[in-house]
Protein backbone atom coordinates (compact mmCIF):
# COMPACT_ATOMS: atom_id res chain seq x y z
CA UNK A 1 0.00 0.00 0.00
CA UNK A 2 1.26 3.44 -0.92
CA UNK A 3 1.10 6.12 1.78
CA UNK A 4 0.53 9.70 0.58
CA UNK A 5 3.08 12.24 1.74
CA UNK A 6 1.46 14.62 4.20
CA UNK A 7 4.19 17.28 4.42
CA UNK A 8 2.77 20.68 3.39
CA UNK A 9 5.22 23.40 2.46
CA UNK A 10 4.34 27.05 2.99
CA UNK A 11 4.37 28.61 -0.47
CA UNK A 12 2.62 31.93 0.24
CA UNK A 13 4.28 34.88 1.97
CA UNK A 14 2.64 35.62 5.30
CA UNK A 15 -0.12 38.20 4.86
CA UNK A 16 1.12 40.05 7.96
CA UNK A 17 4.14 41.20 5.92
CA UNK A 18 2.02 43.02 3.30
CA UNK A 19 2.30 46.33 5.15
CA UNK A 20 6.09 46.04 5.30
CA UNK A 21 6.29 45.17 1.60
CA UNK A 22 4.13 48.19 0.69
CA UNK A 23 6.28 50.42 2.91
CA UNK A 24 9.51 49.27 1.27
CA UNK A 25 8.03 49.69 -2.20
CA UNK A 26 6.99 53.27 -1.42
CA UNK A 27 10.43 54.13 -0.04
CA UNK A 28 12.02 52.64 -3.17
CA UNK A 29 9.86 54.72 -5.54
CA UNK A 30 10.31 57.88 -3.46
CA UNK A 31 14.09 57.51 -3.59
CA UNK A 32 13.93 56.86 -7.35
CA UNK A 33 11.83 60.00 -7.86
CA UNK A 34 14.06 62.25 -5.76
CA UNK A 35 17.44 61.33 -7.27
CA UNK A 36 16.71 63.05 -10.60
CA UNK A 37 18.12 66.55 -10.08
CA UNK A 38 16.90 69.59 -11.99
CA UNK A 39 19.21 70.80 -14.73
CA UNK A 40 19.65 74.44 -15.52
CA UNK A 41 21.83 77.45 -16.21
CA UNK A 42 23.42 79.54 -13.53
CA UNK A 43 23.17 83.25 -14.29
CA UNK A 44 25.02 85.97 -12.45
CA UNK A 45 23.39 89.36 -12.58
CA UNK A 46 25.17 92.37 -11.15
CA UNK A 47 23.34 94.46 -8.57
CA UNK A 48 20.79 97.01 -9.76
CA UNK A 49 22.01 100.41 -10.87
CA UNK A 50 20.22 103.69 -11.06
CA UNK A 51 19.79 105.80 -14.20
CA UNK A 52 22.74 108.06 -13.24
CA UNK A 53 25.15 105.09 -13.22
CA UNK A 54 24.22 104.32 -16.79
CA UNK A 55 26.17 107.34 -18.02
CA UNK A 56 29.38 105.31 -17.67
CA UNK A 57 28.01 102.41 -19.72
CA UNK A 58 28.10 104.11 -23.10
CA UNK A 59 30.95 101.83 -24.23
CA UNK A 60 29.10 98.63 -23.35
CA UNK A 61 27.42 96.40 -25.89
CA UNK A 62 23.66 96.83 -25.97
CA UNK A 63 21.38 93.99 -26.99
CA UNK A 64 17.74 94.74 -27.63
CA UNK A 65 15.17 91.99 -27.80
CA UNK A 66 11.83 92.08 -29.57
CA UNK A 67 9.32 89.24 -29.87
CA UNK A 68 11.30 87.48 -32.61
CA UNK A 69 14.35 89.61 -33.42
CA UNK A 70 17.58 90.67 -31.77
CA UNK A 71 19.43 93.97 -32.25
CA UNK A 72 23.07 94.45 -31.32
CA UNK A 73 23.97 98.11 -30.79
CA UNK A 74 20.83 99.02 -32.73
CA UNK A 75 21.62 96.78 -35.70
CA UNK A 76 19.40 93.77 -36.43
CA UNK A 77 21.31 90.48 -36.37
CA UNK A 78 19.80 87.17 -37.55
CA UNK A 79 19.65 84.66 -34.69
CA UNK A 80 22.00 82.08 -36.30
CA UNK A 81 24.71 84.80 -36.61
CA UNK A 82 24.18 86.27 -33.15
CA UNK A 83 26.70 84.00 -31.36
CA UNK A 84 29.52 84.89 -33.79
CA UNK A 85 28.68 88.59 -33.66
CA UNK A 86 28.63 88.80 -29.87
CA UNK A 87 31.85 86.74 -29.60
CA UNK A 88 33.69 89.07 -31.98
CA UNK A 89 32.44 92.16 -30.14
CA UNK A 90 33.43 90.76 -26.73
CA UNK A 91 36.84 89.66 -28.01
CA UNK A 92 37.70 93.33 -28.50
CA UNK A 93 36.90 94.09 -24.85
CA UNK A 94 39.61 93.51 -22.27
CA UNK A 95 38.40 94.54 -18.82
CA UNK A 96 35.49 92.83 -17.00
CA UNK A 97 33.64 96.17 -16.87
CA UNK A 98 33.73 96.38 -20.66
CA UNK A 99 32.36 92.85 -21.00
CA UNK A 100 29.07 93.91 -19.45
CA UNK A 101 26.27 93.48 -21.99
CA UNK A 102 23.12 95.51 -21.47
CA UNK A 103 20.03 93.49 -22.30
CA UNK A 104 16.87 95.45 -22.97
CA UNK A 105 13.70 93.50 -23.76
CA UNK A 106 10.40 94.63 -25.20
CA UNK A 107 7.49 93.71 -22.91
CA UNK A 108 6.28 91.06 -25.38
CA UNK A 109 9.59 89.17 -25.57
CA UNK A 110 8.93 85.49 -24.80
CA UNK A 111 11.11 83.69 -22.25
CA UNK A 112 12.43 81.06 -24.72
CA UNK A 113 13.84 83.84 -26.91
CA UNK A 114 15.26 85.70 -23.89
CA UNK A 115 17.01 82.63 -22.42
CA UNK A 116 18.39 81.71 -25.85
CA UNK A 117 19.99 85.15 -26.26
CA UNK A 118 21.20 85.56 -22.65
CA UNK A 119 22.75 82.07 -22.56
CA UNK A 120 24.59 82.83 -25.82
CA UNK A 121 25.97 86.03 -24.22
CA UNK A 122 26.99 84.04 -21.12
CA UNK A 123 28.76 81.41 -23.23
CA UNK A 124 30.57 84.14 -25.17
CA UNK A 125 32.02 85.48 -21.91
CA UNK A 126 29.74 88.47 -21.42
CA UNK A 127 28.20 89.64 -18.14
CA UNK A 128 24.50 90.29 -18.45
CA UNK A 129 22.85 93.38 -17.05
CA UNK A 130 19.15 93.86 -17.45
CA UNK A 131 17.84 97.28 -18.24
CA UNK A 132 14.30 97.57 -17.02
CA UNK A 133 11.96 100.44 -17.53
CA UNK A 134 11.41 102.10 -14.18
CA UNK A 135 7.84 102.46 -13.01
CA UNK A 136 7.02 105.94 -11.81
CA UNK A 137 4.08 106.76 -9.65
CA UNK A 138 2.43 110.03 -10.55
CA UNK A 139 0.03 111.46 -8.02
CA UNK A 140 -2.78 113.33 -9.66
CA UNK A 141 -4.15 116.06 -7.38
Amino acid at each position, binding site marked *: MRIARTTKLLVEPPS*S*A*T*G*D*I*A*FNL*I*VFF*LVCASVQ*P*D*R*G*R*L*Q*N*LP*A*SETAEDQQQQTENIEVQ*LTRTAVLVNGEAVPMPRFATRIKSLLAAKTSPAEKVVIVK*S*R*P*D*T*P*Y*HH*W*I*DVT*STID*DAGGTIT*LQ*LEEEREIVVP
Partner: protein
Amino acid sequence: MKISRRSARAEVPSMAMGDIAFNLLIFFVILARAQDDSHLQWTPAEAKNLQNASNSVVSVLIDADSKLYLNGQQIGVAQLAGRIEGLLEGAPPGERPVLVKVHNEALAQRFEPVIEAISEAGGELVHIVEEVRD
Protein backbone atom coordinates in the same frame (compact mmCIF):
# COMPACT_ATOMS: atom_id res chain seq x y z
CA MET B 1 -7.00 33.63 51.39
CA LYS B 2 -5.36 36.29 49.36
CA ILE B 3 -5.89 36.02 45.66
CA SER B 4 -3.05 37.44 43.62
CA ARG B 5 -4.04 40.00 40.98
CA ARG B 6 -3.50 38.84 37.43
CA SER B 7 -1.47 41.30 35.48
CA ALA B 8 -2.71 41.88 31.95
CA ARG B 9 -0.06 42.61 29.34
CA ALA B 10 -0.94 45.57 27.13
CA GLU B 11 1.33 45.64 24.10
CA VAL B 12 0.98 47.25 20.72
CA PRO B 13 0.70 44.39 18.26
CA SER B 14 3.99 44.26 16.37
CA MET B 15 2.08 43.07 13.30
CA ALA B 16 0.67 46.59 12.87
CA MET B 17 4.10 48.25 12.75
CA GLY B 18 4.27 48.11 8.96
CA ASP B 19 0.84 49.72 8.64
CA ILE B 20 1.74 52.47 11.12
CA ALA B 21 4.94 53.25 9.23
CA PHE B 22 3.03 53.23 5.92
CA ASN B 23 0.46 55.73 7.20
CA LEU B 24 3.16 57.96 8.68
CA LEU B 25 4.96 57.99 5.36
CA ILE B 26 1.79 58.92 3.45
CA PHE B 27 1.19 61.73 5.96
CA PHE B 28 4.67 63.21 5.45
CA VAL B 29 4.50 62.82 1.66
CA ILE B 30 1.24 64.81 1.57
CA LEU B 31 2.75 67.41 3.90
CA ALA B 32 5.79 67.77 1.64
CA ARG B 33 3.65 68.16 -1.47
CA ALA B 34 2.09 71.33 -0.04
CA GLN B 35 5.47 73.06 -0.50
CA ASP B 36 6.16 71.43 -3.84
CA ASP B 37 5.52 72.96 -7.27
CA SER B 38 5.33 69.72 -9.24
CA HIS B 39 1.55 70.11 -9.63
CA LEU B 40 1.88 73.43 -11.50
CA GLN B 41 1.58 73.61 -15.28
CA TRP B 42 4.57 75.00 -17.16
CA THR B 43 6.76 74.08 -20.11
CA PRO B 44 10.49 74.66 -19.74
CA ALA B 45 12.43 76.53 -22.41
CA GLU B 46 15.47 74.94 -24.08
CA ALA B 47 19.12 75.95 -23.73
CA LYS B 48 22.63 74.57 -24.20
CA ASN B 49 25.42 73.75 -21.73
CA LEU B 50 23.29 72.86 -18.75
CA GLN B 51 24.60 71.85 -15.35
CA ASN B 52 22.99 70.03 -12.45
CA ALA B 53 21.25 72.49 -10.20
CA SER B 54 22.31 72.28 -6.57
CA ASN B 55 19.75 71.73 -3.85
CA SER B 56 17.84 74.89 -3.16
CA VAL B 57 15.32 75.92 -0.54
CA VAL B 58 13.82 78.53 -2.87
CA SER B 59 11.95 77.81 -6.07
CA VAL B 60 10.21 80.52 -8.06
CA LEU B 61 7.81 79.51 -10.81
CA ILE B 62 5.80 81.36 -13.47
CA ASP B 63 3.19 78.99 -14.84
CA ALA B 64 1.36 78.84 -18.19
CA ASP B 65 -1.21 81.34 -16.89
CA SER B 66 1.58 83.79 -15.91
CA LYS B 67 0.86 83.29 -12.21
CA LEU B 68 3.82 83.60 -9.87
CA TYR B 69 4.57 81.00 -7.19
CA LEU B 70 7.19 80.83 -4.45
CA ASN B 71 7.76 77.24 -3.26
CA GLY B 72 4.37 76.25 -4.67
CA GLN B 73 2.43 79.08 -3.02
CA GLN B 74 1.02 81.92 -5.14
CA ILE B 75 2.61 85.30 -4.40
CA GLY B 76 2.80 88.83 -5.82
CA VAL B 77 5.99 90.33 -7.28
CA ALA B 78 5.97 93.05 -4.62
CA GLN B 79 6.38 90.52 -1.78
CA LEU B 80 8.85 88.27 -3.60
CA ALA B 81 12.17 89.94 -2.71
CA GLY B 82 11.31 90.14 0.99
CA ARG B 83 10.18 86.52 1.20
CA ILE B 84 13.29 85.26 -0.61
CA GLU B 85 15.53 87.30 1.67
CA GLY B 86 13.85 85.65 4.64
CA LEU B 87 14.30 82.16 3.22
CA LEU B 88 17.97 82.74 2.34
CA GLU B 89 18.77 84.46 5.62
CA GLY B 90 22.26 83.60 6.82
CA ALA B 91 23.24 81.66 3.70
CA PRO B 92 26.76 82.62 2.57
CA PRO B 93 27.49 83.74 -1.02
CA GLY B 94 27.76 80.74 -3.31
CA GLU B 95 25.12 78.88 -1.32
CA ARG B 96 22.11 81.02 -2.20
CA PRO B 97 20.69 79.34 -5.30
CA VAL B 98 17.16 80.20 -6.37
CA LEU B 99 15.57 77.88 -8.91
CA VAL B 100 13.78 79.90 -11.58
CA LYS B 101 11.17 77.99 -13.55
CA VAL B 102 9.51 80.10 -16.22
CA HIS B 103 6.98 78.89 -18.80
CA ASN B 104 8.63 79.18 -22.22
CA GLU B 105 5.94 81.53 -23.57
CA ALA B 106 5.89 83.88 -20.55
CA LEU B 107 6.54 87.49 -21.52
CA ALA B 108 9.35 89.81 -20.42
CA GLN B 109 6.92 92.18 -18.71
CA ARG B 110 6.13 89.28 -16.34
CA PHE B 111 9.48 87.50 -15.81
CA GLU B 112 11.92 90.43 -15.79
CA PRO B 113 10.57 92.01 -12.57
CA VAL B 114 10.77 88.53 -10.99
CA ILE B 115 14.42 88.15 -12.01
CA GLU B 116 15.12 91.63 -10.67
CA ALA B 117 13.45 90.78 -7.34
CA ILE B 118 15.53 87.59 -6.95
CA SER B 119 18.70 89.50 -7.77
CA GLU B 120 17.72 92.22 -5.30
CA ALA B 121 17.23 89.59 -2.57
CA GLY B 122 20.77 88.31 -3.17
CA GLY B 123 19.65 85.07 -4.78
CA GLU B 124 21.82 83.26 -7.32
CA LEU B 125 19.65 82.56 -10.35
CA VAL B 126 19.48 79.04 -11.72
CA HIS B 127 17.19 78.93 -14.74
CA ILE B 128 15.62 75.48 -14.94
CA VAL B 129 15.53 74.61 -18.63
CA GLU B 130 15.80 71.57 -20.87
CA GLU B 131 18.78 70.59 -22.99
CA VAL B 132 18.34 71.63 -26.63
CA ARG B 133 17.08 68.69 -28.68
CA ASP B 134 18.53 68.22 -32.14
